[in-house]
């Protein structure tokens, strides 16, 4: 190839890079590691960070149809589990439909989709089972619970799903173990995670290279490269039992993936480590990872306080499994988002347990001033209590709408606190209000 075509290649490369999801830091808090940022997908859908992903089951929220989800204006992204798409016949879709098409998100969807293997709600990785011993053809696999029962998912199987689904972001595989496992097991977990990351990096590299080769590539490979064209890699790392190991592990991942990845996923938390260790690990890893990449963390970062404390450590994207936990328990999230600014006398309520008889005659909406559909329409606490007593699905639908909306408003509030420099104060006052054990 002559000089002319090299220029073409560079231009193509730049165009390709623009097609990938991008992350940009906007504000950095001066007192903590918190920051705000903007995530942009290849379809130019944006989300301000920090924000939380709406949990899904087979690609859709538990109780919300998409038209209802879109009405929650601050909901920006979905967390999708590849393990939900394995059944007795294998993985689906077998082709022909991307994830967006399959679940009805459509071209103009305002949602960012992040895809991982396991379900943060159910922790469906079989923690007691060792990963399957490698066979020559398959390589190492993760044992995951799916509707087909115990399923062994190899890197290739997972990437096959990703190529069909074409989510905006995809995590590399991670091997998660209890934090009180033996040293050997933990170090194996970290090694496997790095190995899988290497494989993911290679897959994305190959896809990028193939695109430049143009006509020289066979049809199958070209399809592959097209498939990953708009997908952003999120490099997974697992937290382990010592800070030193965490630092080294994060460093390796940073070296390996920072060119290809748009963000890092800190996995393996919520598996019997102490709270203080959890935050130490987050801080230590955060320091080793390049600032320009977003941090996603999963596992025991669920309650509003935990989310706030994780954001303090530099986390940009979290799951919102707390929404599902409250909804399925018949509870409504009503904590005051900004106690300093409000004069609300009901500000002491944090969650309402709507099963309780105290709500039989309660004609108030869930939260005064809330603008979600449930509250705007005037559905009362008494009515939702009645629905729960009658075992009506509408109770969960109304609660999920409200709880999701409230959670998303929470993130919006956090972002504004970071932008205005009031984050640390907000965090302290939140800790005082909610953490009775401090």
């Amino acid at each position, binding site marked *: 190839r002559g000089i002319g075509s090299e220029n073409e290649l560079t231009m193509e490369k730049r165009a390709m890079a623009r097609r990938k999801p991008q992350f940009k830091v906007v504000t950095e808090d001066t007192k903590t590691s918190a920051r705000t940022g903007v995530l942009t997908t290849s379809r130019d859908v944006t989300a301000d960070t920090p924000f939380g992903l709406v949990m899904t089951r087979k690609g859709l929220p538990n109780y919300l*149809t998409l038209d209802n989800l879109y009405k929650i204006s601050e909901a920006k992204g979905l967390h999708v589990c590849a393990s939900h798409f394995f059944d007795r016949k294998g993985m689906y879709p077998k082709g022909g439909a991307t994830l967006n098409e399959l679940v009805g998100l459509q071209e103009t969807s305002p949602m960012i989709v992040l895809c991982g293997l396991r379900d943060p709600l159910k922790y469906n990785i079989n923690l007691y089972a060792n990963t399957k011993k490698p066979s020559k053809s398959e390589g190492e696999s993760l044992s995951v619970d799916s509707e087909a029962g115990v399923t062994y998912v190899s890197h290739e199987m997972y990437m096959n799903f990703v190529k069909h689904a074409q989510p905006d972001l995809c995590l590399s595989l991670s091997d998660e173990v209890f934090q009180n496992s033996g040293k050997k097991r933990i170090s194996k977990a970290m090694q496997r995670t790095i190995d899988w990351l290497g494989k993911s990096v290679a897959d994305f590299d190959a896809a990028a290279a193939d695109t430049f080769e143009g006509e020289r590539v066979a049809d199958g490979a070209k399809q592959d490269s097209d498939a990953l064209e708009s997908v952003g890699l999120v490099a997974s790392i697992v937290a382990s039992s010592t800070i030193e190991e965490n630092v080294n592990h994060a460093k390796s991942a940073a070296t390996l993936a920072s060119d290809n990845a748009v963000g890092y996923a800190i996995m393996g938390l919520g598996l019997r480590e102490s709270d203080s260790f959890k935050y130490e690990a987050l801080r230590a890893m955060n320091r080793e990872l390049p600032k320009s990449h977003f941090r996603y963390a999963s596992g025991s970062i669920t309650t509003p306080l935990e989310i706030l404390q994780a954001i303090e450590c530099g986390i940009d994207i979290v799951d919102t499994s707390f929404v599902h936990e409250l909804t399925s328990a018949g509870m409504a999230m009503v904590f005051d988002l900004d106690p300093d600014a409000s004069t609300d006398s009901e500000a002491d309520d944090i969650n309402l347990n709507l099963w309780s008889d105290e709500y039989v005659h309660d004609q108030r909406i869930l939260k005064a001033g809330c603008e979600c559909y449930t509250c705007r329409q005037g559905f009362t606490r008494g009515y939702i209590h009645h629905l729960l007593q009658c075992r009506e699905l509408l109770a969960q639908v109304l609660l999920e709408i409200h709880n999701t909306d409230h959670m998303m408003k929470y993130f919006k509030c956090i972002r504004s606190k970071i932008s205005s420099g009031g984050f640390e104060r907000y965090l302290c006052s939140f800790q005082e209000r909610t953490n009775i054990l401090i």
Partner: protein
Amino acid sequence: VDEFGGLHAFSRWDRAMLTDSGGFQMVSLLHLADITEEGVSFQSPSNGQSMMLTPEHSMKIQNKLGADIMMALDDVVSSVNPSYERFEEATHRTTRWFDRCLQAHERPHDQNLFPIVQGGLDYGLRQLSLKQLMERDDRIPGYAIGGLAGGEDKESFWNVVHWCTQALPENKPRYVMGIGYPVDIVVCSALGADMYDCVYPTRTARFGTALVPDGVLRLHLASNENDQRPIDPDCTCMVCKRYKRSYLHRLVNRGDSLGAILLSYHNVHYMMNLMRSIRESIIDQRFPEFVRHFMQRHYPDGPPEWVVCALKAAEIEL
């Protein structure tokens, strides 16, 4: 509910609403319901205490609920009871109880009280019920045809509807209670009925069955695994616009709530569309054609005898 301002305010539904008297639910859902002239005595499901539902009590409750249409308490005969004497007693008692309902009804200007024509499957008893109720026609905004949808044979079913619609006043709505299969609705509409209610469309949706022009589509069946069509390619609902059968098959199979929700959405849309089509074809003077087309799609090998007979009585040749 009264505290909350009535059922409309409680459930945030500002369109039409109808409440039943509670009679049918008691007899079908509770043990040891004992019917006397006074009312229906039963055991409270929450504490086993003996309770009585009288026509007066039913009116009081329905007045407080505040629905637009309310039903008189009728003497509901259990469908396993074959005795003519029992049906006869129930026919007379239903009229007596309707008189008591009329007396006890406190909101005749807000709420429409419908009586229920009874008489089992017997022509004579049905005519008796019709005659007695129509003697009170000046106080009746609409009539319900009850005692059907209890597993009776289809031949009796359409005949009873026909006797009633022939006799009832032209200018008042006829409400056939508990009817909801699309075929039944089309036939009853041909015979001159106007209103229906049924749990069928939403209940069957929760079990993974979608209503389609050809009948039903059981989405949990493996045949849908790779089917890339929507439930109904001609349906304009949100579900049919966005989703394929193969995906819905996976949602309904494991009872994910979204599966039940999406299918309920489609089925309700289907029913509303069916009713609209019936109305429009009547207005456009092409109702017989509509019925023929509907039956053709539902029964490609020819409709059952009872449908043919019923439609013949309605002056529609298939």
